[in-house]
């Protein structure tokens, strides 16, 4: 049986998607698609580093298997009259070499261009997704499926895939739903808009350059330090990040605007959803440095209580209201896309991005089938580049290590320096690597 919901088909075909299939963009994607540019690539990366070099041909075969299971990722972005839409991409997604600068150089609006890339270098398999297609959860699910499929190509069948999606499993129609619209309550109030935040004052690097600095830290001491203060690893790292931004801001002069850190939240934890598209919101933690210097323990308490105050179903509904109300606005809906593009891009880049100093996104701890535990060294998660905030942070854990990655579009590494120094002062060692060598 085949049915369509806004063009979405659930029937499988050879390529995974039926010819002529199309998908509406989800609520978050409608902001990301117009914002696409050489610097605002909206690409973020999840990667896995194996213990052995990657065999490209096996990876390509695994990728071909996976794309049939995820037809909603086998699409290209096409302009409609009122909105962009996703259409089945007739080309085959190929594994590409991994360059020095990740998440860059991609013409996402070009016909036939995928909104995800699979790249490999030495022992690392990387998947770069445009935020227009999905969020970190969807990307990680895809990477895990790809990794297991690759492992099967190389080492034979995995007996128990656990919670990882099997490439030959039946597709759930709910995977393509726009959960923002399902959970949206029209009469809910929208949250109060925040003012502009302080930003790093440095000049941007040329387009195409993205500085990545990843720190590998042992999970044990990190968890112990968080537990000692009664919080989670996420609270602890957010507090360290705020501390690093405060140190940077104090060194660069007295900021007149608050330092505000955005923490993306996976809404699937609060609302029942099986969507593989975007379903996240952001909560913020704010330090107003005009009130004076904040000690680390003060910042930790502030982060702890702030996150718990924000992260509940009722409050998150107000965030949903803010996101969806513009999409449902009848005037905005009938404005042609070419005009809407400029309007949405301006609001997203200047207003929404202007409200945060930086963001820290945590994908949590990854668990894999037992067959793969010994084959994987670590996971990595890189945030999307942002010319407005200039630096963002992303965290992911695997085994007994947590990888904290910074992606920045400026030359100066002041934030990472203060971040890892603060960690060190708190008794947590870090082993860092970068994509520019540090020579």
């Amino acid at each position, binding site marked *: 049986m085949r049915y369509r919901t806004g063009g979405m088909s659930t029937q499988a075909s050879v390529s995974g998607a039926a010819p002529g299939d199309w998908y509406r963009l989800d609520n978050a994607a409608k902001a990301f698609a117009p914002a696409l540019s050489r610097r605002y690539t909206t690409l973020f990366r999840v990667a896995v580093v194996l213990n052995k070099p990657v065999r490209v041909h096996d990876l390509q075969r695994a990728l071909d298997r996976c794309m049939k299971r995820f037809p909603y990722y086998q699409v290209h972005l096409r302009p409609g009259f009122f909105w962009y839409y996703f259409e089945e991409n007739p*080309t085959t997604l190929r594994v*590409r070499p991994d360059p020095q600068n990740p998440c860059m*150089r991609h*013409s996402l609006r070009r016909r036939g261009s995928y909104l995800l890339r699979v790249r490999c270098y030495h022992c690392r398999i990387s998947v770069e997704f445009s935020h227009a297609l999905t969020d970190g959860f969807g990307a990680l699910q895809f990477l895990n499926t790809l990794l297991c499929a690759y492992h099967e190509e190389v080492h034979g069948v995995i007996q128990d895939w656990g919670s990882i999606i099997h490439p030959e499993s039946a597709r759930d129609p709910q995977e393509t739903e726009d959960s923002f619209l399902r959970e949206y309550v029209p009469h809910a109030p929208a949250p109060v808009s925040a003012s502009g935040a302080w930003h790093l004052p440095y000049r941007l690097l040329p387009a*195409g350059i993205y500085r990545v600095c990843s720190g590998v830290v042992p999970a044990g001491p990190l968890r112990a330090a968080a537990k000692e203060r009664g919080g989670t690893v996420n609270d602890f790292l957010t507090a360290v990040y705020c501390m690093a931004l405060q140190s940077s801001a104090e060194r660069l002069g007295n900021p007149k605007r608050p330092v505000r850190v955005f923490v993306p939240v996976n809404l699937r934890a609060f609302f029942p959803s099986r969507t593989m598209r975007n379903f996240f919101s952001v909560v913020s933690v704010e330090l107003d440095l005009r009130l004076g210097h904040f000690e680390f323990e003060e910042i930790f308490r502030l982060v702890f209580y702030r996150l718990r105050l924000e992260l509940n179903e009722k409050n998150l509904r107000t965030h949903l209201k803010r996101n969806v109300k513009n999409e449902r606005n009848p005037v905005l809906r009938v404005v042609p896309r070419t005009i809407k593009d400029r309007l949405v891009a301006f609001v997203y880049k200047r207003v929404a991005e202007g409200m945060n100093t930086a963001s820290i996104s945590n994908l949590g701890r990854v668990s894999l089938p037992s067959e793969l535990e010994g084959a994987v060294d670590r996971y990595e998660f890189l945030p999307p580049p942002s010319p407005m905030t200039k630096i963002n942070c992303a965290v992911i854990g695997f085994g007994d290590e947590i990888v904290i990655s910074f992606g920045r579009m400026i030359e100066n*590494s002041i934030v990472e*320096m203060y971040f*890892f120094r603060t960690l060190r002062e708190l008794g947590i060692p870090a082993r*860092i*690597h970068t994509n520019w060598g540090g020579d």
Partner: protein
Amino acid sequence: MPYCSHCGVEVDPKARSCPLCLAPIQALPRDPEAMPEYAQVDYKEARVRLPVEYRRRFAVYLLSLVFFTPLLVVLVIDFVQSGTLDWSRYVAAALLTGWAYSVIPLLVRRRVVAIVLSYVAVSAGFLWVLDHLHGPPWWFYSVGLPILAVLAVVCCAVVVAALKVKRKGANIAAFVLLGIAVFCIGVDIVIAANIRGAAALTIGWSAIVAVALLPPAGFLLYLQYGIARRIDFRRRFHV
């Protein structure tokens, strides 16, 4: 693993300075097997090659837009000006024929016979419409259709001959010239028989055309089969 004493972090074995504070790091003996964490080059984005079927479909959409937009415009202008469709019918017929000519090879691909028959049918249809638009039909069956038949036969013969010959070169041009000569003779006979009322198989002006075209065609055939056999042009003039 080398270590930065300022930041307290371990750094890549190949790093000569701390990537955070730029402080120099004491060199350690390097592991020759060690690879840098990232590639040291940036790759250009791979060119997207869309499948032929997709590009063909897109070309049909584009050509339809190119032909149907002016079609709509002339129909509207004519209707607004005169309250009826007058001259715009001719333009519409020409545009529709042009559209059909352009999309036939895209829709009926690689089937030469089907393409030729489609072209003949479209051309016949266009002539029939022109004859009927002007008033009582009078020239389509007596002149238009026979000339079209001659044209189709001559074109097919030239194409088949060009495809059949093993060595292609000046002989193709000769076949084209001979085809023009035969077509002119055919047109002359049809016109003489139907318009001037002459007896069947009367040849007039077309004889002069044929006489003019035969010497260059013969020369080209001689060039191909007489001289070219002895001189390897491909070797001497290869680019």
